[in-house]
């Protein structure tokens, strides 16, 4: 009997296990709260209450919009520039040799340094956050796009050339599907990074957004409020990942799972 129940649990699907993982985190959190008290680690419940207060005060929504704007605009700029340059670099040895050391250098600069620099350059405007995100995330996208373009099957390229396929179809049907298998995981990472850098920039610039909220919570020494903001960032990240990245990934990888129904 117990054996059967166990088997049902094991085979119970991904959602069940995901829920179990979350439950463990919340339980550990609650245990931590009981051990160290309200100041160090507010309970999950009081964090939710703090979140409710923030929402009720009308600070939540503008902050979410600002942070989303900062993170996504930077992410978009990084994606466009990174994939375009990466695509060219993957096809051209001189461009690759020239850009790769630059990208490595840019990756080496700590994100917080970009934040400080862009605050000096752009002041307290929203542009500072956008720029920090773009320049911190761009090289990651670039590296993936380069690697993807470089490893496109030479045989397929020859085949396309033999059939005198036009450049548009060549890019869309030979290059893109292969490059995306490198690019999409990188874009997932890049998106997560974008939120972090945006919040960091906002925290220092004080020009609104979730980072600004965090700075205020810190000034008020309000741990529950701080945790509440953290939850907001994480929720935002998850929502965008599930709503944007995941469907795109699923669309382009139909063939991997071998599901029929894909048109030409």
């Amino acid at each position: 009997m117990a054996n059967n129940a166990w088997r049902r649990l094991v085979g119970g699907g991904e959602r069940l296990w995901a829920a179990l993982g979350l439950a463990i985190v919340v339980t550990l959190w609650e245990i931590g709260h009981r051990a160290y008290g309200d100041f160090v680690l507010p309970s999950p419940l009081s964090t939710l209450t703090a979140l409710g207060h923030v929402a009720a005060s009308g600070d939540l929504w503008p902050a979410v919009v600002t942070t989303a704007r900062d993170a996504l605009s930077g992410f978009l700029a990084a994606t466009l520039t990174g994939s375009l340059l990466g695509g060219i670099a993957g096809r051209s040895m001189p461009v690759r040799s020239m850009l790769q050391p630059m990208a490595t250098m840019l990756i080496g600069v700590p994100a917080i340094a970009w934040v400080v620099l862009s605050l000096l350059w752009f002041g307290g405007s929203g542009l500072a956050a956008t720029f920090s995100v773009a320049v911190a995330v761009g090289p990651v996208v670039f590296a993936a796009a380069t690697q993807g373009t470089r490893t496109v099957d030479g045989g397929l390229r020859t085949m396309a050339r033999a059939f005198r396929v036009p450049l548009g179809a060549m890019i869309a049907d030979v290059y893109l599907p292969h490059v995306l298998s490198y690019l999409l995981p990188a874009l997932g990472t890049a998106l997560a990074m974008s939120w972090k850098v945006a919040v960091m920039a906002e925290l220092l610039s004080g020009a609104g957004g979730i980072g600004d909220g965090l700075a205020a919570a810190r000034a008020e020494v309000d741990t529950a409020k701080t945790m509440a903001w953290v939850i907001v960032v994480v929720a935002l990240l998850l929502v965008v990942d599930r709503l944007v990245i995941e469907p795109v990934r699923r669309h382009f990888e139909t063939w991997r799972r071998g599901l029929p129904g894909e048109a030409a």
Partner: protein
Amino acid sequence: MSQEGALTASGIGHGFAGARVLDDIEIWVPKGNVLAILGPSGRGKTTLLHILGGLLVPDAGRVERPFERPAFVFQDPLLLPWRTARGNVAFGLAGTRLARADRLARARSMLVKVGLGHSEAGLYPHQLSGGMKKRVALARALAVEPDLLLLDEAFSALDVGLSREMQQLVRLDAQERGVTVVLVTHDLSEAVRLADQAVVLSGRPGRIVARLAIERPARLRDDAFVEAEIRRIAAIETIRDAFRPTLSI
């Protein structure tokens, strides 16, 4: 001896990374004729085919290729893994002016001709067997209605019956539309069934060591003729030497 529309190659030589692969190749295929390139493996047959098809520029010599729509069947099927069988055949038509729907329709009917029905048309390459992939590649080439068809071991992964059927399909299609065909094979019977003339490549670098003409029209070649012809060809000394390690009849 130039003739309008013939595929001509003269003085072809080529090498990879310093090693010469082909030397002093002369080829002349009149429009609508079928040339077979025979020879043991590793003697530059594929390289020569790529040169004739314009995929490779030879180090020496020149090729006259008065054709507008060349089509290839490569040794590997070279299908796009992210496209269905139908999508792959339609991809060969991407350079034409056909609308998308027409391309797909033509792809579907060409797949039927190579014996792949509606259910297989929607499958991805990794869901197809080796022989099916080969047939998709053949359908992709025939779908463009080529005036020059280049086949690299196109029938080699197929079982005997299927391979005969596909050969028949290519022969009929080529005859009907006057397609010039160059096929690479190590299978003498394939050459004897399809070709009007054949060259045998051998040695390193590969040179043409023998030229054969098969006079009887392809549609009149029955099994007895093919068998007798193979025996006749296999008896020729230079050919026996070239094939010594692989010949087994």
